[in-house]
């Protein structure tokens, strides 16, 4: 079977931004090749160059080649690359939400020769029995982990010789990451070559045979995964220590968020049942739990997006469950979103200014006439935006379009926008999803500083255990919509129920060293 060869590949976006500067690597016809690297290293660009989708994203191959079975993939269109046997699973899963699971799989089989369809079906059924169970359901209703399985299964329906996987562990709970890892190994063993792009180096090195480290568009380190796993350089960079945030000062006061017996139902499914928690003013409270535990639902209830069927949420002597989202925002409650909700074509400064909306008094007419009050207000807001950008280390990119920034920085912009509303209570939905250990440690330090300087109360939803343990004063654990434990990080970590439900035995060693 043929190998996939990448030779001295140079790629740029918009003719200016150099994303790859001479990458060469070989993918043998079997087994798993891992490509590691931080945000903006060029990992996704490499996959796009192989799958010929660069052009759809405004990029172009300047020089070099991608060859497979004697054919130049970089000169084909994406559909032809798939027919040649190279199939990509895009980052962020990208399932067809309005199609059923079965239709998602079928869509990928359209390009597959008929004789290969049956074996592909059988393979997907064997690897992902869960997808068979839920075949008739809309893919949009699956949990994150299930959607990732569907995305991989869907690509397998195209009967690939080479499978390109872009960040399959992104935003998934450790147990699910473990499971996906096993499946990737299995796919490699079954005779399909896999190119795995990952930030989770522990996972990538465990499941791969060979690994390459990509940094600012160049391969800086290559070797067998077993070798690389023992390299000090790799350990420092990706498996780094836990963040060590100093315990911040406590602010007293009556501004405690009290959630009491909240239940939410969607149709017949109980997303939350009788959940209670207290977020003490000035503290950092973490809400953790496996996928589908109800964490995001809980945030949505707090911000008024979902209605609670029962129970109460009180903050600043106000009952939140009956308020509309914009009324809750006026109580100085701000949130960030798990999947970034930024305006990609606007600059960082404009995105941050949007966050000031709650505090803007000048109306449409005053702003249009540029009255003195309106101008002063705008100047004040620009000042505040500048200060917050500084706190978040975004001052260098303030006038860049958000769409041009790497993922990690976009997450910071999202956080900055929430801060511009001058919240007293900040709700963070998976702030470090998709970041390397190093980046998440830096963000933890930033958050600890922000909280001290801006007198914030923070409720955060997270999968990243190291991040939570280093930062939170208190932890509440949800599983299947129920609270199964709460207490200090140390207490929760020892709770056998939590270990069973959330961490799993193998993952425990990874997440809580």
């Amino acid at each position, binding site marked *: 079977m043929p190998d996939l060869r990448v030779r001295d590949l140079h790629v740029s976006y918009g003719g200016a931004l150099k994303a790859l500067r001479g990458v060469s690597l070989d993918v043998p016809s079997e087994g798993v090749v891992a490509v590691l690297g931080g945000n903006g290293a060029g990992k996704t660009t490499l996959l796009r160059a192989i799958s010929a989708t660069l052009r759809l994203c405004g990029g172009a191959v300047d020089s070099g080649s991608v060859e497979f079975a004697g054919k130049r993939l970089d000169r084909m269109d994406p559909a032809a690359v798939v027919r040649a046997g190279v*199939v990509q699973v895009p980052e962020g899963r990208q399932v067809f939400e309005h199609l059923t699971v079965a239709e998602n799989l079928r869509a*990928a089989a*359209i*390009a597959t020769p008929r004789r290969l369809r049956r074996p592909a079906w059988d393979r997907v059924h064997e690897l992902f029995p869960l997808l068979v169970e839920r075949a008739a359901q809309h893919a949009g209703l699956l949990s994150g982990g299930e959607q990732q399985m569907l995305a991989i299964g869907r690509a397998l329906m195209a009967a690939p010789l080479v499978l390109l996987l872009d960040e399959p562990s992104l935003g998934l709970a450790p147990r699910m990451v473990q499971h996906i890892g096993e499946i990737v190994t299995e796919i490699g063993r079954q005779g399909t070559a896999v190119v795995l792009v990952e930030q989770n180096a522990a996972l990538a090195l465990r499941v791969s045979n060979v690994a390459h480290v990509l940094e600012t568009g160049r391969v800086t380190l290559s070797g067998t995964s077993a070798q690389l796993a023992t390299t000090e350089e790799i350990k420092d960079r990706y498996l780094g220590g836990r963040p060590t945030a100093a315990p911040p000062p406590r602010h007293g006061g009556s501004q405690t968020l009290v959630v009491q017996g909240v239940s939410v139902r969607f149709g017949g499914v109980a997303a939350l049942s009788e959940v209670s928690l207290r977020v003490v003013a000035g503290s950092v409270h973490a809400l953790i739990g496996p996928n589908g535990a109800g964490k995001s639902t809980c945030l949505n209830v707090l911000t008024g997006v979902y209605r609670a069927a029962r129970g109460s949420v009180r903050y600043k002597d106000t009952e939140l469950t009956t308020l509309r989202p914009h009324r809750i925002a006026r109580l100085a409650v701000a949130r960030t979103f798990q999947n970034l909700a930024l305006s990609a074509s606007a600059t960082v400064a404009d995105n941050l200014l949007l966050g000031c909306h709650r505090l803007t008094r000048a109306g449409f007419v005053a702003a249009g006439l540029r009255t003195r009050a309106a101008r002063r207000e705008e100047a004040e807001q620009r000042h505040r935006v500048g200060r917050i950008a500084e706190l978040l280390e975004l001052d260098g990119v303030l006038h860049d379009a958000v769409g041009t920034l790497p993922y990690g920085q976009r997450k910071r912009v999202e956080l900055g926008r929430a801060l511009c509303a001058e919240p007293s209570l900040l709700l963070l939905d998976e702030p470090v999803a998709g970041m390397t250990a190093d980046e998440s440690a830096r963000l933890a330090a930033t958050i600890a500083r922000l909280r001290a300087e801006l007198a914030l109360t923070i409720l955060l939803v997270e999968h990243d255990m190291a991040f939570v343990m280093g930062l939170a004063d208190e932890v509440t654990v949800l599983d299947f919509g129920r609270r199964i434990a709460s207490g200090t990080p140390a207490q929760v970590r020892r709770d056998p129920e939590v270990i069973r439900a959330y961490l799993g035995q193998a993952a425990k060693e990874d997440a809580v060293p």
Partner: protein
Amino acid sequence: MKHFFELLLNGLSLGCIDALIALGFVVVFKATRVVNFAYGSLLLLGAFLIGRYHESLGFAVAVLVSIVVTSAVAAFVGVVVLRRVRLADPGTLAIVTLGVDILLATELTRRIGSDLLTTGDPWGASVRDLAGVHIAQTRIAAAVVAVGVVVAFLVALKFTDSGVALRAAAERPATAALLGIRLGRVAAGAWLLAGALAAVAGLFFTAFPSPGITGSVGQIALGAAVPAAVLGGLDSTTGALVGGLAVGLTATFAAGYQDQLAFLGRGFGSVAPYVVMLLVLLVRPSGLFGGKEVTRV
């Protein structure tokens, strides 16, 4: 009461024609995100071909020719004309279709000249009496054909590879391409289908009791397609069908009760669909079935 039932029946049958028109409009939007303003003149082309050739070729053959030629022209517009500017944004492409519409409509109007073209369909001007309620024979034929076409379309959309490919490409074009779905083919298929629908709809839209095939037919048809498609939700085929029926019923009832509605002015029937569209958009900004999010539990 008899008047009411007569309007209801006529409104439903007109709604079937409007639904066909809206369906062709929506299929192109769904597959390519292009608002196809050339759709009216494509419909005029379909009707024109039938009107011009039914005497020499016979009605049935003329309809077949019309379907084939109109589809081919639509595919030419969609694939050849728009490919040149494929990387442009959908707004630009919509303006290109507007240009195509003006060209095509002008040329057809010139060719029609002062002729009085009729469709020459076998139902002619006969009117059926259903339990005291009068309805044109052509309208019954229109309803039967429309239901057949729509059912066939929906079955194909749900169960065939092409249908799945269209829906996948409509939802996430980049991902569909990553799975080997050829977006160019999906777009070409959508334009072909839109052309065929335009020809069939053109036939019934200009048959009795309409006055015949004139240069303004395209504009009038587009005037029905836009509110129907928009109020249903531009990217929803179900929406196009519901929207078409709603527009047909509204226009018929507003015209039928115009004496009672005289305080709104003469000819309220022709603006009534737009009023309904605006009211729907006030409540549901993306239309009845458009852009609905699936919420994860």
